[in-house]
């Protein structure tokens, strides 16, 4: 690559003196033969999650003497920055976690190697917790998240609104009517979470688009967003989306989170399982965990959360694999689920969880995930698709003309895809 050779050349000039002076090159110790395996998480600032990792690591390190896991934690907000820089410097750790939809981009760029975990282990996991790119498994996660619409039983009853079920979710007309009714008693009846930024937008709203019949990209070819993101279905969905804000049903007032539902300032909150515990504590038995709205093609929610992979340059891939295999024990999955309030990846771990067990309070989220979860498109072009989608959706929310905004987004995505020779598809 050009940029490489340029800076290499300059650096070579600077270092020539060192070499000539007979100074030896440092031996590589970053993921070297000593059996040390470096591992990066995005979990800095999350003591609950880190405690589980520490437990796994100390158990693993004690269970054998060949390998030693060394952990490094990054805050989520700047994790991708750190990975990109480390990849540029060829200093990636052996084990790294990543947000599911980003995986194909990293696999395509050559950051990752196939995961190589036993088939029966992979087979026991929820499909959306396994990251596949071109039929090869590159990543797997301990949990998945799920979205739902939170509501209060009492509020729906008072307004004569039917409580939807997994088998009979709200249709769009029903939902529109319900929100319109609730609008009379709430200034803003619906919280769609639009104050958030980044990946949330694709995670939360592209399933609604899919439920209407559109998509982020044509998943058959992965070569164009034309028709999927700007076809009649997409226009229909985004027109609805724009109306929801224009009618005052929803707004993008901050801050991010579920506080407005807890304070009963909104009646319906489209939010994630991670906010359910607080809601449960303050709303109690009155809390409803409702399935997403059926926009026409059945309800959909996003699948695929943080997952683990092994870097291509890892010199101790066997050790990394041994660690991952060790870490996928049900007791650890349950521990993650109960500390983070996320859906465990195996049925056995879910059974043992205090939130997701058979009769447990948040069981419904596991059901929603199983029934409705759809992964985001597994293409290396995803980061550009996602950031383009976010911008288009935000612009539409703020009043931009729907069709032309979507056409612009499609053009940006398609230009990007062709500039990368179709991302290998």
């Amino acid at each position, binding site marked *: 690559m050009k940029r490489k050779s340029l800076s290499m050349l300059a*650096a070579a000039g600077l270092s020539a003196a060192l*070499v000539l002076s007979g100074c030896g090159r*440092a031996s590589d110790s970053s993921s070297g033969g000593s059996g040390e395996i470096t591992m990066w998480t995005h979990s800095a600032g*999350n003591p609950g999650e880190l405690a589980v990792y520490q437990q796994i690591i100390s158990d693993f390190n004690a269970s054998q003497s060949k390998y030693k896991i060394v952990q490094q934690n*990054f805050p989520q907000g700047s994790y991708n920055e750190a990975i990109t820089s480390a990849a540029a410097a060829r200093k990636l750790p052996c084990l790294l976690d990543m947000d599911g939809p980003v995986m194909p981009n990293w696999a395509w760029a050559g950051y990752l190697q196939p995961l190589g975990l036993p088939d029966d282990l992979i087979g026991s996991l929820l499909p959306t917790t396994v990251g596949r790119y071109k039929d090869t498994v590159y990543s797997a996660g301990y949990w998945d998240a799920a979205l739902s619409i939170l509501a209060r039983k009492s509020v729906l009853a008072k307004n004569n609104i039917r409580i939807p079920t997994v088998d009979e979710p709200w249709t769009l007309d029903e939902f529109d009517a319900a929100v319109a009714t609730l609008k009379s008693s709430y200034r803003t009846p619906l919280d769609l979470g639009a104050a958030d930024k980044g990946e949330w937008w694709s995670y939360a709203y592209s399933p609604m688009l899919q439920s209407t019949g559109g998509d982020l990209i044509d998943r058959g070819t992965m070569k164009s967003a034309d028709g999927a993101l700007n076809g009649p279905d997409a226009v229909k969905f985004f027109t609805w989306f724009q109306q929801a804000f224009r009618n005052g049903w929803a707004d993008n007032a901050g801050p991010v*989170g579920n506080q407005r539902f*807890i304070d009963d300032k909104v009646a319906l909150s489209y939010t994630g399982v991670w906010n359910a515990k607080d809601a449960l504590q303050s709303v109690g038995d009155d809390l409803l965990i409702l399935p997403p709205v059926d926009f026409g093609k059945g309800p959909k929610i996003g699948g695929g959360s943080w997952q683990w992979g092994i870097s291509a340059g890892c010199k101790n891939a066997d050790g990394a694999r041994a660690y991952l295999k060790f870490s996928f024990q049900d007791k650890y999955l349950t521990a993650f689920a109960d500390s983070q309030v996320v859906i465990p990846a195996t049925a056995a771990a879910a059974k043992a969880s205090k939130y997701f067990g058979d009769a447990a309070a948040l069981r419904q989220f596991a059901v929603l995930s199983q029934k409705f979860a759809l992964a985001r498109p597994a293409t290396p072009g995803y980061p550009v698709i996602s950031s383009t989608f976010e911008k288009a959706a935000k612009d539409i929310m703020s009043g931009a003309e729907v069709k032309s905004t979507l056409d612009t987004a499609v053009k940006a995505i398609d230009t990007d895809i062709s500039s990368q020779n179709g991302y290998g598809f």
Partner: protein
Amino acid sequence: MSRRWIYLAMTGLAVFFLFPLVFMFVSSLKPDGQILSDVGGWRAFLPVGDISFRNYAGVFERVPVGRFLLNSLLVTTVIVGAGLVINSMAGFAISRMRWTGRRVVLSVVIATLIVPFETIAVPMVYWVSQLPTLLFQNGRLVYDFGWLDTYEVQIIPFIANGFSVFLFAQYFSTIPAAIDEAARIDGAGWFTIYRKIAVPLSGPAFATVAILTFLPAWNQYLWPSMVVQDENLRPVMVGMQYFFQDTTAWGEIMAYTSMITLPVLVVFLAFQRAFVSSVAASGVKG
């Protein structure tokens, strides 16, 4: 203008300049839910309701505050200290000595002011990741490539500063040239003149540059989050990211920002008199 009106205007302005910071500190004493429900009224400024230092305790559980403060202190001190020496020397040479090339150097130095760091951050990562470095390994001096994940990478690129050079050059040019000539006749070298004459006369300029380089160094954010991997080397501003989890810990953010703003305020309050008189004395010119 009558005195009463001046006071009234100044008090109004003081409220305008302080209210967000009062909000920050008051909020740091409240639980998240209350911050959000108080936000629209006067209660936002008042330490009422459920007041405690719990957020501060929470901060310490989440972030290694002491370590981060220490790192920032180290990085900032070296940037400011080394910057004072290097930039003042350059400013001295540019403003007080005649040598071919000084006009070109001055133009280049001034031109660097128009480059916002964000626009060169990415090329910079590629560049520093290729630079050679020296280190001790098994008792032997060896070299390696890549500055990522070190203190150097947070410090060295920020020592030289075009704005500082410019300010020093401005200030030094106000010292009468006759002093140099007298010293030259006495046989003093240029470095001696710089060290024994120019520097002692320029305390205010040093104070100004110190404060002006302290602030950006302390607030470094984008760069360390790109190049620092080891938690033990992270500076304070990167710690902000720790609070933006699935649910944002607003109270702890307010507590943390109060904590990392406090040292800067203390430094400023301690130096403000010298600073203001120094800006005045440095007679900034275009």
